[in-house]
């Protein structure tokens, strides 16, 4: 009898993985991927057919909407800087000493010919705020298991009105995503891997984005020296920084 009651007690208090709710999962995903500040060096490899172009950038992020990027390589693009604030982006072109403002729908254009848009690259918004999610089950992914979650945008002006994400149950990192247009067309896939412990969070040091509209096109981001909650000068998050 005591054994039976003990087993009953264990079963009643155990929290199986599938019992996690979508808000809980998203909260942990956001905790991993969003930040107050972040600084990192990124290598972006853009592959289109048999052409491969490699860029190296130094990136700063603050909150969900602010980001600054400076291109280090190749030589042709060295010194190009970008600063994003909410719905506007400024691009500094050192060869002509001019600033190009990019706003509105232009933010969804390809950044430097990659499969990332300017918006994709320079923001880190919390999915909890943007999407309503439905748990669509569990699937095996890699060595473990993932939750499959169907996310629908709360607002019509979100870039990707629907995302289907596979969140690793061990790390709470979305190892695979499918990004859809309003029409239901699959636009991109976004895979995250090489997850490492960085300052108490799980962070993917590698991301691959594939354009499903244009065959043979993919972009890989490799992060180095990622640091969070760093002190970044306010000036870095301003248009003034571009011309320095």
């Amino acid at each position, binding site marked *: 009898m005591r054994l039976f009651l003990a087993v009953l007690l264990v079963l009643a208090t155990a929290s199986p993985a599938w019992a996690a709710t979508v808000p809980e999962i998203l909260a942990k995903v956001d905790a991993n991927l969003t930040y107050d500040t972040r600084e990192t060096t990124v290598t972006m490899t853009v592959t*289109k057919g048999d052409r491969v172009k490699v860029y190296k950038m130094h990136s700063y992020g603050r909150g969900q909407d602010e980001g600054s990027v400076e291109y280090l390589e190749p030589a042709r693009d060295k010194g190009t800087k970008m600063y994003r604030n909410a719905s506007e982006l400024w691009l500094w*072109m050192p*060869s002509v000493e001019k600033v190009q403002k990019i706003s509105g729908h232009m933010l969804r254009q390809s950044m430097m*010919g990659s499969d990332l848009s300017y918006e994709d690259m320079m923001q880190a918004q919390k999915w909890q705020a943007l999407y309503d999610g439905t748990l669509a089950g569990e699937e095996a992914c890699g060595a473990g298991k993932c939750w499959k979650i169907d996310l629908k945008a709360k607002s019509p002006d979100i870039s990707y009105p629907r995302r289907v994400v596979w969140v690793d149950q061990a790390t709470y990192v979305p190892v695979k995503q499918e990004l859809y247009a309003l029409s239901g067309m699959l636009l991109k896939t976004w895979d995250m891997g090489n997850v490492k412990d960085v300052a108490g969070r799980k962070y993917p040091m590698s991301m691959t984005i594939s354009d499903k509209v244009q065959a043979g096109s993919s972009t890989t981001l490799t992060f180095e020296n990622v640091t969070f909650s760093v002190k970044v000068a306010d000036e870095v998050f301003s248009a003034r920084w571009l011309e320095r």
Partner: protein
Amino acid sequence: MSLLLQLAMRNVQRNARRSLLTALMISTGAAFLILGMAWVDGVFKGAMAKGALFVGHVRAVTPAYSAKEQFFPLEENIADTAPVVAALASTPGIAGAYPRIQMGVTVTASEEIGENFGLLVGAPDELYTRWLALDRSLTEGRLAKADDEVVIGLTIADQTGAKLGQEIVVLGQTQDGSMSPAKLTVVGLYDLGSANQNKMMYVTLEKARWLADIPDGATEVVAYVGGDVANELVAAEARAVPALSGLDVKAWNERAPFDSFTGVIGTIQAITAGVVVLITALGVLNTMLMSVLERTAEIGVLRAMGMRLWPTLVMVVMEAFAIAVVGGLIGVAVGGVLAWAWLERHGINLGAAVKGLPSAIPINSIVYGDLQASQLVTAFVLGLAMALVGALLPAIRAAGIQPVEAMRFRR
């Protein structure tokens, strides 16, 4: 036959006013035909010939570029143009072959990167001077010699406010989609006669290659035919060259929009001529029917006296022909003088109507006619045709008149 002619001439003079009006109708039709043909030929020869120079008599591109040409897809380029240029240049009939890059850019002369769009073209100097006569179209300055120099059209100059000696910034993309900006000094302004053609900017080939990041290549290789050789035949010969296999090689009139445009021009000419002939023929028909009706009794007498069917018909047709000869000669004279004095010398100002045309069809705002002797002959012959068509029914009617019934006919 001479009797029939005498009868026909007498009938023509019987109602001189009506005959004169009919002649006037035919002369108006003939004059319109001459003006129409001269103008269409002017458009065709002027614009098409000019367009052929701009797009190249023969052109080689990758098939993928050809499929997406309206977007100027830099990534669908010919990576190494040297063997393609050599192969085209050695094709019989080709007088010169050149790599060329065309890319869409935004242009600004002020502090702000603006929304003025233009087409930037990079090609060897010889293409500009020998074939496009760009140096002769300059209104100010000279052609670009250095990589940081540009020649711009008057439309771009107006839109941006750019002046000779001023720096402008062009912003394009590389073949990989990266932003590609450049500062260029305006060393020349040109006027090619149409707003669309004046939206282009010409730089050195090396500068265009740098902007597009296509080090040894180009988006197209254009070739020019020397002498009076059909471009399609030269293109067909070029396609047989092994070095050009895998590329899309076509003559200018085998490519859009010219392939449909040339057909449309021929159709327009034929329809216009047909409409003019028909309308004028209706007028002749009216005149001749009235003439036959008035002379029903007389024709009946002639038939009773032994004039057979065929001579009766010929008599009526001869009347119409006599009027047509006079009308045709007057029409040819008036139409020829108008085409020579007005269309060839002053032209017709199409103004804003040409703005929407693709820049590959460089129709100038003012289009001049091209009067040819063949047009005068055609108009005169068509004038006779108008008379024949208009006189046929009345002639058949006259030939069918029964003598006894005709003599009973009272007006």
